[in-house]
């Protein structure tokens, strides 16, 4: 159990349904300050919806989300923009702005939201690109000219550029080859360590989860059904977790194959 004063993000009894389809069904989750929590779970179990609810991109039906002890579900407009200054987010598809150069992407949050001058922001962008192993020349390219792995690294640089307190990673390794995936994992671990940030990631890539997590939580049926330190995942004693980490088709989790 985490002491209340150390809790950075507290989610309680979160519900969200899209029409008839219930996605989150009374989800509870705590993330401590400086902790890396990875939420695992099958496709379509609502992992992304959880992140988007916390980010305010989706409005939950009911429940409470607190960041630093402050209720945020009802925030909107300027207050929401202010809150987002604490956050960084790495999107699954990188979501780089294709109308801007790479360095402008990285410096976007600094220039637009924090009003930093272009030259200074450019300097920081180049440093951040170097942190993810990209040369300064890359900054002048447009995102469409980069490979998937490089785009992911640029997206990571953008997520950490403003040195946020909280970083979300949405499937950071999906769509990359195992080696590039591991490079991204290493970068995430390094960047998060350097910043001392609190992170919440969602993935179904267990190699990635083992590498970046302090604690793993399993999402199934709209609830967190198990959570524990990353070392204990192999002896969780939970059939659902066992089935998931061993990738078995048979078990308590029934995949909807036919209609």
């Amino acid at each position: 159990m985490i002491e209340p004063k150390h809790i950075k993000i507290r989610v309680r009894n979160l519900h969200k349904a899209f029409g008839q389809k219930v996605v989150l069904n009374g989800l509870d989750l705590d993330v401590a300050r400086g902790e890396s929590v990875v939420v695992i779970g099958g496709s379509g179990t609502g992992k992304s919806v959880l992140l988007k609810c916390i980010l305010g991109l989706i409005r939950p039906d009911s429940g409470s989300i607190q960041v630093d002890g402050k209720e945020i579900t009802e925030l909107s407009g300027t207050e929401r923009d202010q809150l987002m200054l604490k956050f960084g987010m790495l999107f699954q598809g990188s979501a780089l702005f294709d109308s801007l150069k790479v360095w402008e992407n990285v410096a976007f949050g600094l220039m637009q939201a924090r009003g930093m001058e272009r030259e200074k922001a450019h300097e920081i962008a180049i440093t951040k690109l170097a942190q993810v192993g990209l040369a300064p020349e890359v900054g002048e390219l447009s995102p469409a000219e980069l490979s998937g792995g490089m785009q992911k690294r640029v997206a990571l640089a953008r997520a950490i550029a403003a040195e946020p307190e909280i970083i979300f990673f949405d499937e950071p390794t999906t769509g990359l080859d195992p080696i590039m995936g591991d490079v991204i994992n290493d970068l995430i671990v390094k960047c998060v360590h350097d910043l001392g940030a609190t992170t919440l990631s969602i993935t179904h890539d267990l190699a990635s989860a083992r590498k970046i997590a302090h604690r793993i939580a399993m999402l199934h049926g709209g609830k967190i059904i198990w959570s524990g330190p990353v070392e204990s995942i192999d002896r969780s004693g939970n059939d659902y977790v066992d089935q998931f980490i061993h990738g078995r088709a048979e078990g308590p989790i029934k995949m909807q194959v036919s209609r």
Partner: protein
Amino acid sequence: MSSAGTQIRQTLVERICAPVGRVFLSFLANLGAIAIFTGRALIHCVTPPFYWRLVVRQMVDIGYYSLPVVGMTAIFTGMVLALQSYSGFARFSAEGAVATVVVLSMTRELGPVLAGLMVAGRIGASMAAEIGTMRVTEQIDALTTLSTNPYKYLVAPRLIAGLTMMPLLVVVADIIGVFGGFLIGVNKLNFNPANYLTRTFEFLETKDVVSGLVKAACFGFVISLMGCYHGYNSRGGAQGVGTATINAVVSALILILIFNYLITELFFSK
């Protein structure tokens, strides 16, 4: 028997009424959504921070790069107007009215409407496709997470640019259209150039031009609004973006024709 009959009649009524009601309700829901979208966008048009760089970029896109297509439309419309009105009016010996007919038709109706239709095809489609793609690739979500309001960053600059650039485009279209009529009148229909010009301005009133420019501003706003609204709300990958583009262009075209009538009514009905 009677109860079974009632049941059949009920299901029949339901079968006919339910789809009608569903269409009507979704129409109302859409109307409300557009109203909320417009309201939010307008608030963000007038509250800081402003992204002037983006406004200028949109202005260049809408105003400058639409010039060729609008110019072509205008010159051929002016030319055809001169030809048609000449051959038509010759039937009751009113050929002298050609210049007046050309200038009044261009400034009041054809300049704004045809420019509006061309720009709707060009700009409405590109806005819907661009914003729609940003939506489905999570770029709009990324904006939010970078503390940048998408309404302010994407929608407001486009609305401002549409509203201000369309009148300028229509001024150009009016001039080119009248020039097209002049070319045909002088070279093909053997009008005296000086006479043609005198007749062009003789019966032209400020109201004719102003009503056309008010229309243009309104059309420009509607085109940008529909492009942004449908792009912003697109769902589901490439197909969703395609649908959004269709909806943006079609709804802009229809709204242009409706507003054209309403504004004409406002200015010229006695």
